[in-house]
């Protein structure tokens, strides 16, 4: 036990040293933490949460900024929102890709808006004074009702509302909490007046849900919009015109004092080019095809003339 702990501590401190030495080329990291926005005025430290999509978005931001001549440092896979928002506030990082809906709920306990514009406006007002958000992109990573391509073609489905005449003969799948959650079965009934034949409790957008949809145990299932299995299996994400699921647009969250015309132009250009299908495809390249996120980011930027 002691030995493992010691070994762990050793590895951890070695890792910290490595991280620290990366950041100390120009200044002491502690000094930079003590005086946010002062040291390395031209350098942007890009962070990310600890999941592939966030790290990929951070790579895209970093690639676009360095293409415009901005000095960029990366501190990826920091952890959860509870870990990286404080890092953003104390100046350890300056920029991170975020999602409007969840970030709104993080800063604003009374968040109410559900549609994209409403959530964005509510979030903009709720962001702490030292931080700001730039333009949101059309890309969203949020709950969705998904059907197979065959079902979508056969019943000509585009949005959740199109399920109206068919729901009574369909089996809906989703995580067990969907049975009672306001954004699950009760929400589909209330907002879209849909009553499915049965609800089959599966997992939260995991392999069970994907397989049940693929093999026909469910006709529609809850997955996340940028889930790589959507692109991999040609599933169809149904639109949510009545915003049952709160908007989760990808948006850059950045330290206000670091923003200048070059930076905001570069990041807003990315947001303009990203949509859900594009982001889902990029995430699939990283997660399913095991391509390096740096390469995927670079390819995306080159293709769109951003990098």
């Amino acid at each position, binding site marked *: 036990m002691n030995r493992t702990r010691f070994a762990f501590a050793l590895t951890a401190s070695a890792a910290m040293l490595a991280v620290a030495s990366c950041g100390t080329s120009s200044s002491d990291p502690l000094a930079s933490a003590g005086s946010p926005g002062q040291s390395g005025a031209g350098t942007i430290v890009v962070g990310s949460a600890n999941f592939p999509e966030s790290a990929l978005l951070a790579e895209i931001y970093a690639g676009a900024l360095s293409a415009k001549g901005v000095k960029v440092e990366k501190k990826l896979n920091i952890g959860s929102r509870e870990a990286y928002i404080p890092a953003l506030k104390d100046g350890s990082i300056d920029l991170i890709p975020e999602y409007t809906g969840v970030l709104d709920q993080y800063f604003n306990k009374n968040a109410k808006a559900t549609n994209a514009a409403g959530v964005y406006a509510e979030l903009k007002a709720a962001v702490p004074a030292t931080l700001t958000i730039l333009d949101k992109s059309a890309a969203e990573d949020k709950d969705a009702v998904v059907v197979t391509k065959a079902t979508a073609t056969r019943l000509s489905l585009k949005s959740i509302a199109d399920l109206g005449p068919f729901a009574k003969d369909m089996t809906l799948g989703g995580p*067990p909490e969907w*049975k009672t959650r306001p954004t699950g079965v009760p929400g589909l009934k209330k907002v879209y007046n849909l009553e499915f034949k049965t609800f089959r409790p599966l997992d939260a957008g995991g392999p069970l849900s994907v397989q049940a949809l693929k093999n026909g145990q469910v006709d529609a299932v809850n997955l996340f919009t940028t889930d790589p299995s959507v692109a991999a299996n040609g599933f169809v994400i149904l639109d949510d015109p009545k915003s049952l699921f709160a908007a989760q647009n990808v948006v850059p969250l950045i330290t206000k004092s670091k923003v200048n015309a070059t930076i905001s132009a570069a990041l807003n250009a990315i947001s303009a080019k990203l949509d859900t299908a594009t982001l889902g495809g990029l995430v699939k390249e990283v997660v399913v095809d095991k391509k390096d996120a740096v390469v995927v980011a670079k390819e995306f930027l080159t293709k769109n003339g951003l990098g």
Partner: protein
Amino acid sequence: MINRILTWLADGAHWHGDDGILRRVVEHLEYSLTALLIASLIAIPLGLYIGHTGRGRFLVVNAVGAARAIPSLGLLFLAVLWLGPKLSGDIAFLAPTGLVLVVLAIPSILSGAYAGVEGVDPAARDAAIGMGMRGTEVLRHVEFPCALPLILSGIRSAMLQIIATATIAAVVSLGGLGRFLIDGLAVRDTPQTASGAVLVAVLALIVDLVLALIQRLVVSPGLTGRYGKVSLMDAETEATSPAPALQHSV
């Protein structure tokens, strides 16, 4: 907490309907009994054969011992992802669940069966052979009845494990009492989760009690000693002492 569990259990709405307790208990018993039946059909003949002949003992005993170490939930996911695409409808989830429960039940039943036959009094076996019985007759008329107590206790312990583990059916979207555990956990509904756990425990106890009664009925009284020691003596004492006492009182 106990109050909240009791309140949840006392609510009639939780007992009836498509996702009520009664329906879930029936589902739970369906999964459990089917798995027990299949496991018995595999394990009892195999156990009797090994016990009777002594052949393959080393291999089977060790393989079955190793099978006890298989984690049920892991096997379930493996089976769902592997078998699922080959099957359609509910079977895609029922078959993997059944497989997991059968694998879980076989070791107890098998070891009960072969140990039971092995442990038969050699004198009884010799007597049977001496009376001119052939191998299968010895097995059928002497070894099997004599091994019955151990076979049945193997089945009982297998059934306890099955009932406790059949809750994982709910993980792959099936019913059973596990639904209350999984659904309760998903929405942090502690009374529902705890009530589900209590129901599983109670069901396991009731089923074990029923199996104990069956065991009492089917096992030859000559083996349990109930006939020789208790019943005979009761008969004697009844025959001798109460009657005169009755006469005196009249």
